[in-house]
């Protein structure tokens, strides 16, 4: 018996739980010569503003133990060129297109969402609420509960597309942001984006990235991301798309057991652009081996070991 891998996200049903993470897969079309994009659960394209953006001066990445920092600065062609130049090709390739949308202001988010809602071939919007240059006095939407609620509500009103706010891990309690997003009408949430981090060249004493700081991704962050997905699963009912250091079917399954309905693979695609069938088929065989009828039946099934002490408090206590 072949297990049912489909995942529902609002009105959308995706073929399997494995999605390419935004910013780690270009606009998708770059990988069409290597991978059949229609075999992925979805393709989350590079974050898009209304206008073209240049991004930061290189160096934009640096490796760290079991991870990497990036400060790309959301270089992008802008939503209009995306719709005109990339979307038709993605449609032709049969990709389930999830567009990661950004804004410097609430109005920009809404406008980007509108443009994409009017286009053909967008399956869902992933709301990147950790973007630079936000109105609100520099405080990101994604780091304030009120800001999160406002931007999700505003975009919700502007689109009927499935709406997936993407949460930052750089907050005390990501699950409260998950709840805020759910209350504001999100169809699902995705997490985690990268961890704010820094690396310094000790010879020059300059930050290794031109931008100073960057976001940490890759296997290093996986256990923190799994914890956050688990915490969010305790408080929201909507689907969760989990990510952070997933590099194998086993890692994806761990996120699903923690509470993710679907997963995204980012950094691992850099190392291994042919990872996709291995993750998808690995989930299938795991489900078969464990006699689990559908991917959905795995979600959030972490067994409990007597948690005698509040986990959060205890864990950081050494």
């Amino acid at each position, binding site marked *: 018996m072949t297990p049912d891998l489909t995942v529902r996200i609002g009105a959308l049903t995706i073929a399997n739980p494995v999605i390419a993470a935004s910013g780690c897969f270009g606009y998708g079309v770059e*990988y069409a*010569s290597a991978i059949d994009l229609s075999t992925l659960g979805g393709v989350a394209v*590079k974050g898009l503003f209304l206008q073209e953006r240049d*991004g930061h001066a290189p160096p934009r990445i640096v490796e760290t133990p079991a991870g*990497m920092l990036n400060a790309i600065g959301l*270089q992008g062609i802008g939503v209009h060129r995306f719709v005109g130049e990339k979307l038709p090709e993605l449609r032709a390739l049969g990709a389930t297109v999830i567009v990661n949308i950004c804004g410097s202001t609430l109005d920009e988010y809404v406008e980007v969402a509108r443009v994409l809602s009017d286009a053909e071939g967008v399956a869902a919007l992933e709301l990147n609420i950790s973007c630079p240059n936000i109105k609100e006095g520099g405080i990101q939407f994604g780091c304030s509960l009120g800001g999160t609620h406002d931007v999700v509500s505003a975009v919700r009103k502007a689109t009927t597309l499935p709406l997936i706010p993407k949460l930052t891990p750089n907050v005390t309690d990501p699950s409260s942001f998950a709840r805020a997003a759910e209350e504001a009408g999100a169809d699902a949430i995705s997490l985690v984006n990268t961890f704010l981090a820094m690396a310094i060249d000790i010879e020059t004493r300059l930050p290794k990235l031109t931008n100073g700081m960057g976001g940490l991704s890759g296997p290093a962050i996986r256990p923190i991301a799994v914890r956050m997905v688990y915490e969010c699963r305790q408080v929201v009912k909507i689907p969760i798309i989990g990510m952070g250091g997933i590099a194998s079917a086993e890692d994806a399954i761990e996120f699903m057991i923690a509470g993710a309905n679907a997963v995204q693979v980012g950094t691992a695609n*850099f*190392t291994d652009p042919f990872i996709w069938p291995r993750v998808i088929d690995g989930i299938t065989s795991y489900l078969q081996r464990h006699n689990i009828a559908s991917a959905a039946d795995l979600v959030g099934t972490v067994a409990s070991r007597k948690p005698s002490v509040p986990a959060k408090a205890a864990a950081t206590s050494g």
Partner: protein
Amino acid sequence: MPADVDARVVENRRLSSDYNVLVVHAPAIAAAAAPGQFVMIRTAGAGGAPLLRRPFSIFQIVRDAGGTPTGLSIINKKIGTGTSQIYDARVDATLPVLGPLGRPFVPPASGDAWMVAGGVGLGPFVTLAETLQRAAVPSKLFYGARTAADLHCADLFAPLGAELHLATEDGSTGDRGFITGPLERALGQARGDVTIYTCGPTPMMRAVAALAARFNRACVVSLEQVMGCGMGGCYSCVVKVRQPDRPRFVRSCIDGPVFDAASVVWEELAH
């Protein structure tokens, strides 16, 4: 269409205390490669650290007795973790090799082709020289290094019909000084069409590009930026190039590594 091959190391030829040529078995990549293309290698083998692959020019295509491509070599210079792993790679070890990647060199439509290499920048030129020979394009190789002992593999080029011009900073072989010395002299004497192809340290490439501009010759550079993915996924490898309306960051892995030297905004290169 790039392939990801678990490539067996066939030979590791040490050229010096920091240079080696590594030969791997990778028929799918070898068969598809064009001159100047590169591969991304997981230098630690699958699953090891460092996490990210490292880019290397395809140095030679290895063929069996019947001429069928079976593998490729890279010329490597030890500068950090990944290149040290390549230097230390054991025969029969398996390294994930992804490729061929990037825009290849295109032989000139007319006239001569002059290659200008500095150090490990020799990487893309054997395959180019082969192509030039097949296309009957007259070619020269200008090849510079610090000292004679660092001029590796120059002997590969004479059989490919390339005329050799060498320079060493200490004068131990060829001209004393930078390779731009003999290049400048040659440019001063050149009559017909010349296209320059260059790869090496950025200051050298920049000087070569400036000479080409001064002598009004086409110049193509192969840039070596830090690359996260090699396939256009991450936007880490960008180079600023002049475009009709304004300069823009473009991905050197898929829009390069080969660029028209005149379009590159040299001041904004990361390396």
